[in-house]
């Protein structure tokens, strides 16, 4: 079981960072996007908003997995609207900055995702055959899997990895609280 955990950080996998697939470029764009967003929220300068907009759009046009980052940012934005931690200028600026990425996502959905993925025979093959075992078949099985994973996460096998989780907790932006308002 320990090897499964080590496998995710195994040095042998690092060679994947230097292949022709666009994942490292996408990760770079996403880091720049998030850092630019934080700089904008701290400083209120338009150049960081521009960097945020460009890097998010760049990431969206590179890989579909960056849609998850865009959607997560959207959820955080909605949460900030309800919490009223953003100024009016920030709300307008962020909506304008995110619109190129949102439009790109819509266009990609209409031109690529819907016709070539959702409507393809490959998707049916994947879900019915070679990916079938990767998904829980019903709610009971899903709850059993979650319970099993939680049981493993707190087992002695993973005891040595708790520092990893603690380090996350220490440095992650959740600790920033509500200090997003422009000074």
């Amino acid at each position, binding site marked *: 079981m320990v090897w499964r955990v080590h496998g995710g950080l195994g040095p042998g996998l690092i*060679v994947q960072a*230097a*292949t022709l697939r666009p994942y490292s*470029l996408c990760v770079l764009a996403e880091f720049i996007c998030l850092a630019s967003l934080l700089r904008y929220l701290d400083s209120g300068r338009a150049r960081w908003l521009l960097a945020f907009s460009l890097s998010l759009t760049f990431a969206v046009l590179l*890989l579909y997995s960056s849609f998850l980052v865009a959607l997560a940012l959207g959820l955080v934005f909605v949460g900030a609207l309800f919490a009223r931690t953003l100024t009016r200028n920030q709300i307008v600026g962020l909506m304008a900055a995110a619109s190129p990425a949102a439009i790109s996502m819509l266009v990609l959905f209409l031109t690529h995702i819907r016709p*070539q993925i959702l409507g393809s025979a490959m998707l049916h093959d994947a879900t019915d055959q070679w990916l079938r075992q990767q998904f829980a078949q019903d709610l009971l099985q899903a709850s059993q899997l979650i319970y099993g994973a939680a049981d493993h996460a707190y087992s002695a096998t993973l005891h040595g990895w708790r520092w990893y989780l603690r380090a996350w907790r220490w440095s992650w*932006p959740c600790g920033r609280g509500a200090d997003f308002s422009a000074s």
Partner: protein
Amino acid sequence: MTKHQAPHDTRARITTMLAVAGVLAALGLGLALRLGLRADRWWFNADEGFYIQVATTPSAVEASTVIRSNAHPPLHYWILRLAEPVAGDPANLRTILLLASLLGIVAAGWLGWLAAKPHASGWPRVAGAWFGAFMVALAPA
């Protein structure tokens, strides 16, 4: 004013230097791992062949048709097509991704620095920068 400001400036300078030193160490580690494992000896995925095929197609119209009819987003294909005349050998196109991967280590350090909760001591930011940079240096991205 300056009496109180001087120690604060010194502390800020030290924490900044420590963060930069950690990110540079992570960058060195990341570079050594990425080059030391000799990824250039193998092709790892069928996608790589497809990317090369599109990047080296002589006709732009033909390439455009392939890109439009492919399930993946288009930008990476166009980046590779633009870089292909400079790269010469298709295997050299991987250099773009290697550079992006190394810049990703620096960007993760920067993000970790910004994301950590600002504190008078500056240590959470140093920890954030180190953690971000080393995490990406050791990760396959």
